[in-house]
């Protein structure tokens, strides 16, 4: 029917369009990554922000639900990435008025303070099984939580508290949850549905869970109704990879985009094509050697001179240089490398009460009444200065750290023997009878305010070793309940001198990143926070903009 010339013109039009379209499309979205694959550091067993007991689960939930408060790497609140726009604390630190920004769930409903109240109700219902129980005093510290209107709510505490501490550690836990969707389920049902993707249909974060292959990977797609900046990829996958070395092999093969970089690989990966080494901001964590002060078999731990000697024997600098290739931070007190903004000025100057000094370590042991035995191990009243440390299997880096600690201790006459167990067995043992363990290789995460109420206060919920000291309790109490930072500084100095646990070096987080992926530095926030909107790609692996 149409004339031949006419048909040719139409055909030409379509041909031209076909040629121009991809160019136009690419020009419209030059940074689209397609699929981004990132390793989870452990098996994901939950997507619910309520049950986020481990880093991997926290991150899996993180990308679907917005944080109330985002704390950046300078330990400041980043208001642009938080759901709150303003927090007003009363002078005595008991009352907090919070303003929410206008934000929507994926079904269009407004995120309101009713959702915050609902989340808090669930936290209370979970009792001690709530992962954040006790942190920031939650939930018992809150006397009342009321919604003033849809975007304002008020928190009243049972007693005055240090506002920075409460906001960072406590208030930040009040993630709004979709009450209009979830309130029909009871707690048991919420627990049973925590790995079912279809349960998470009402979200307010940038990504939506599409598929979950248990024990393997979680596949996310962008949330089209997200109020924030659009993400620059079409699929995002958390994949669980067993073993650091396997992840390196995977990124070399091009199967994943980001990989951890175990220290032993550092020299070996310098020349892999298509991949670069990137150091991200320090994480709010450190490793420590927990000591069981309740166990009479190792009563020598109760003597602060012995603990200080152990700390002074450790050449953290050498360990960082040799094993971590210089990529690590010395830690002598309770402040993590990400909380340095809250570190006492004296400590920031490098003036720590403890530090590498083997001669001083031996002098301390001598003052404590120890003399070298025939095998070089210190002894007193017939008891050798020897103990067994529990470590959890799974990390070559961890094993190396233990061996360095062991060698350094031996150099001053202290013997440490290693007993490797599974991680959850280690926890069980540490929570079991007092004489079940002597020392344990452990680590801690901080949210931003490095106070010690969870670790070092008498009877604190994470104080497995039974450390108890009146001065420590007083300082912790002041740092948590009184305004200002002077009590916090005093606590830090005291903890560094007391070494209730033996603080250990913190490896710098170093990653291998595929050349096409950028924005990784901003993607990983401190304390496990993630911001997928910061990721973007360049097809030619060009320079970061």
């Amino acid at each position, binding site marked *: 029917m149409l004339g031949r010339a006419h048909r040719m013109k139409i055909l030409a039009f379509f041909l031209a369009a076909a040629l121009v379209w991809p160019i136009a499309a690419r020009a419209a979205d030059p940074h689209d990554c397609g*699929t981004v694959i990132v390793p989870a550091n452990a098996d994901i067993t939950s997507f619910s922000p309520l049950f986020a007991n481990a880093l991997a689960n926290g991150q899996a939930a993180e990308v679907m639900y917005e944080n109330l408060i985002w704390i950046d790497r300078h330990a400041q609140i980043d208001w642009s990435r938080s759901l709150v726009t303003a927090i007003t604390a009363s002078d005595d630190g008991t009352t907090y008025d919070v303003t929410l920004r206008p934000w929507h769930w994926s079904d269009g409903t407004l995120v309101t303070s009713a959702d915050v109240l609902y989340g808090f109700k669930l936290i209370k219902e979970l009792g001690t099984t709530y992962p954040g129980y006790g942190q920031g005093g939650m939930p018992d510290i809150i006397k009342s939580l009321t919604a003033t209107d849809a975007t304002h709510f008020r928190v009243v505490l049972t007693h005055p508290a240090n506002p920075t501490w409460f906001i960072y550690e406590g208030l930040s836990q009040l993630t709004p949850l979709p009450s209009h969707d979830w309130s029909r389920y009871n707690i048991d049902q919420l627990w049973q549905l925590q*790995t079912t993707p279809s349960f998470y249909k009402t979200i307010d974060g940038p990504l939506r869970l599409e598929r979950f292959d248990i*024990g393997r990977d979680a596949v996310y797609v962008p949330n089209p109704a997200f109020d924030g900046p659009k993400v620059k990829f079409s699929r995002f996958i958390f994949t669980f990879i067993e073993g650091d070395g*396997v992840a390196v092999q995977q990124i070399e093969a091009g199967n994943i985009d980001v990989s951890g970089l175990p220290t032993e690989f550092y020299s070996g990966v310098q020349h892999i094509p298509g991949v670069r080494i990137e150091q991200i901001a320090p994480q709010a964590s450190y490793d420590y050697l927990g000591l069981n002060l309740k166990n009479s078999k190792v009563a020598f731990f109760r003597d602060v001179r012995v603990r200080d000697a152990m700390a002074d024997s450790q050449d953290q600098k050498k360990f960082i240089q040799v094993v971590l290739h210089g990529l690590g931070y010395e830690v002598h007190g309770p402040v993590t490398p990400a909380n340095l903004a809250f570190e006492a000025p004296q400590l920031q100057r490098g003036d720590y009460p403890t530090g590498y000094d083997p001669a001083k370590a031996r002098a301390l042991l001598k003052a404590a009444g120890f003399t070298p035995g025939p095998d070089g191990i210190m002894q007193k009243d017939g008891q050798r200065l020897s103990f067994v440390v529990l470590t959890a299997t799974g990390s070559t880096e961890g094993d190396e750290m233990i061996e360095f600690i062991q060698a350094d201790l031996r150099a001053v006459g202290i013997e440490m023997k290693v007993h490797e167990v599974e991680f959850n067995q280690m926890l069980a043992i540490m929570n079991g009878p007092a004489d079940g363990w002597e020392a344990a290789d452990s680590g801690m995460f901080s949210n931003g305010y490095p106070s010690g109420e969870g670790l070092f206060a008498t009877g604190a919920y994470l104080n497995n070793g039974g450390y108890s000291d009146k001065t420590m309790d007083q300082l912790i109490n002041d740092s948590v309940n009184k305004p200002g930072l002077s009590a916090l500084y005093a606590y830090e100095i005291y903890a560094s001198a007391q070494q209730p646990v033996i603080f250990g070096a913190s490896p710098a987080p170093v990653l291998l990143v595929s050349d096409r992926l950028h924005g990784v530095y901003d993607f990983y926030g401190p304390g496990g926070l993630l911001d997928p909107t910061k990721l973007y790609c360049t097809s030619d692996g060009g320079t970061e903009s």
Partner: protein
Amino acid sequence: MIRMVGTRLASSTLTIFILVTMVFFMVHLTPGGPAYSILGMKATAASVAELNQRLGLDQPIIEQYGIWWWHLLHGQLGYSYLLSRPVGELLWQYEINTLVFYTVSIVVSTLLSILIGLVQGVYFGRWPAKLIGGLQLAFYALPAFFVAAMLVLWFSVQLKILPASGITNLRLADPGVGSYAAHLVLPVTTITLLTVASLSRYFGEAVHEELGKDYVRTARAKGVGFPAILFGHVLRNALRPLVTILGLSFPYIFTGGVIVESVFNYPGLGWLMWRSALSQDYPILIAIVLLIGILTVVGNLLADLVNGLLDPRASYE
């Protein structure tokens, strides 16, 4: 026949009962428990106690034992504490992967073994058979983790032609059969190398034995061609012991090998059992043990039945 099956089932049920009971008590008596895995670093005495109460783990063991059997008789295998899914669903998901993996492996192994065994049986006493015999002894002694490691080293790290882990390429939104197949090559090769040794030896001995029997001599005297004898009758008769062995390895198709699956990060049932054992996820562990028990019984039974079918008395003699 029916009576044989009946008695076998009865005594096997007793075996399974003892098995499951032993595992149940052993697993529940291990200190720790899933609460620690679930609560992770935040596990404290108080929270563990509360979670145990919510999960029903604080009840006396005898009661928990009874409850478990009660659920089982109603067709429920329980709920995974750690993964928050019904155990049956989990088992099935991982089962499929193991099924594919091991079925392919056993098929390949069997075909190879038949081939090798034929050569070994026919050339018995001469150098090809001796060479094969020597190789069989050597391959039989290869440890699984060593074979797997070497294969990964050669093909994934050095030659970079085959993937070292996983089940498929995650990048592809719709991975085709090719991707699954590529990821199966190394694991299947590992298992095949390990099983061909003993399988082909059994078959080779069986072939040799058959070739020495009267009916073969008779057939040859009558002028029947050797290939016809070989493939027509010897093969079928020699298959009987092979079937027995396959029947005995039937459970392994389903339960998989923990080491091979962990080296290749292959999400099969063996891998699931390993992870569940480490995190003390009791329901999964006990369900898998029950599965192993039943499959062992079924495997033995099937092997005997098929053996009966291939009975030489029914064939040309």
